[in-house]
């Protein structure tokens, strides 16, 4: 299962290295959203610094939608999904591989966003371990739930519009947990943030388990 996951993740990341879609499209989009928030929320009134945790994670959610759509668009061309089904790879491995590739790309986006928030919004970092742990747990949860709902919507004609309405309410606990933990890590008291990490880890584990179990049947359908 883990060998198969490595193969699928390697394939997806190689495609990304060659096509540069995340680097050249999703990443600039993330920075653009930061600028748009700056324009919308008047940088002089100090909203941005206080709201930076929430703005960071809302931006990550939008970028996650793009990354998830992209992860299944690359399978749509040249009968990629049929090839995956026929490859004999363990469906659980395919799920973990696709989720890992999405997570790696999201981590890159988050690194740039974090730098952007600190530089552009003047946010102060007070708890680095909590920050790193939150990013790891939240990204795992986003990638796992996103891969599951992404393959659900993959074969449909209305996938671009359906995925956000299906996925975003489901991800609201991640937004809550990650924002609260970030608020603690960015200028707050770090100790307040650790319980929220528990919520993020629980969410990630639930969706990793369910995705591993259900992905095979869903792949057959899409």
């Amino acid at each position, binding site marked *: 299962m883990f060998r198969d996951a490595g193969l699928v993740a390697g394939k997806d990341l190689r495609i990304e290295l060659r096509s540069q879609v995340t680097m050249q499209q999703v990443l600039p989009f993330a920075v653009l959203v930061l600028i748009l928030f700056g324009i919308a929320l008047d940088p002089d009134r100090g909203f941005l610094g206080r709201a930076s945790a929430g703005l960071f994670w809302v931006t990550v959610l939008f970028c996650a939608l793009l990354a998830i759509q992209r992860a299944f668009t690359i399978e749509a061309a040249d009968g990629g999904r049929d090839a995956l089904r026929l490859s004999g790879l363990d469906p659980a491995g395919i799920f973990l591989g696709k989720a890992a590739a999405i997570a790696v790309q999201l981590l890159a986006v988050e690194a740039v966003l974090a730098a952007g928030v600190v530089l552009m919004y003047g946010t102060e970092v007070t708890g680095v371990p909590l920050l790193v742990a939150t990013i790891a747990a939240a990204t795992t949860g986003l990638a796992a739930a996103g891969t599951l709902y992404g393959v*659900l919507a993959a074969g449909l004609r209305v996938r671009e519009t359906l995925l956000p*309405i*299906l996925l975003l*309410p*489901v991800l609201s*606990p991640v937004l809550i947990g990650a924002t609260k933990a970030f608020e603690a890590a960015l200028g707050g008291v770090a100790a307040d943030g650790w319980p929220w990490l528990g919520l993020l880890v629980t*969410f990630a584990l*639930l969706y990793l388990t369910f995705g591993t179990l259900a992905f095979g049947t869903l792949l057959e*359908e899409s």
Partner: protein
Amino acid sequence: MSAPPTTASRATRAIGGLSLAGLALLLGYALWWSPPDVVQKDSVRIMYVHVPTAIVAFSACAITTLASGMWLRRRSEGWWVLGGASAEVGLLFTGACLVTGSIWGRPTWGTYWDWDPRITSTTLLFILLVGFLALRRVDNESGIAAQRGMRAAIVGLLLFPNVVIVHYSVDWWRSLHQPATITRLDPTIEGEMLFTLMLGIVVFALVFAWLLVHRFRLGWLEERVRATGLDAAIVERRAEADLAGRAR
């Protein structure tokens, strides 16, 4: 299996009649016979509608999840139809719950919307249901019953767990800001007020059952139309061709 030409039966007429009579009785108790609340005065009366619709809405989600799980096991049409019917009627009750909550919030909190954990999570529930029904609709357009709906069934299976996760995380999120909301509703009610609330729950459960049975039967008829539609169309075209041939 032949389906009845109508969605009504003796049982649904009985449930319907009971629902209507129950609603009339509830109206009497809620508006006249129960006393006004000490704190909330007369605005407490909308609770006799609001709380039952909330309970029914969450139960409808549980039924959808159960039906989706059973469909995944058995692949029988009935469970498929039940999952959709329950979500649809549940959406109606979720909407009613939000609207009545908002009307209650105006005199109580002074605003139609407050970031109260229950309002927030119920609104998210509303959107979860809309998404589920949108997916079902897309799923419904293609394929035969046994293959169709795998996506909707998985989302349906996750519906109730998601509702629970969202509910508790929103609860936790808001409770840090305003712990008072949890105790704002006086938990100790008794006498006629308690009776009216219980009556409301029973009556709205009946209304839910009534609508659910009708919606289920309608869904079942839709399935029959789908199954026989193609055959009927072919027979019709053949008949037309025969007529045209004879006329010549």
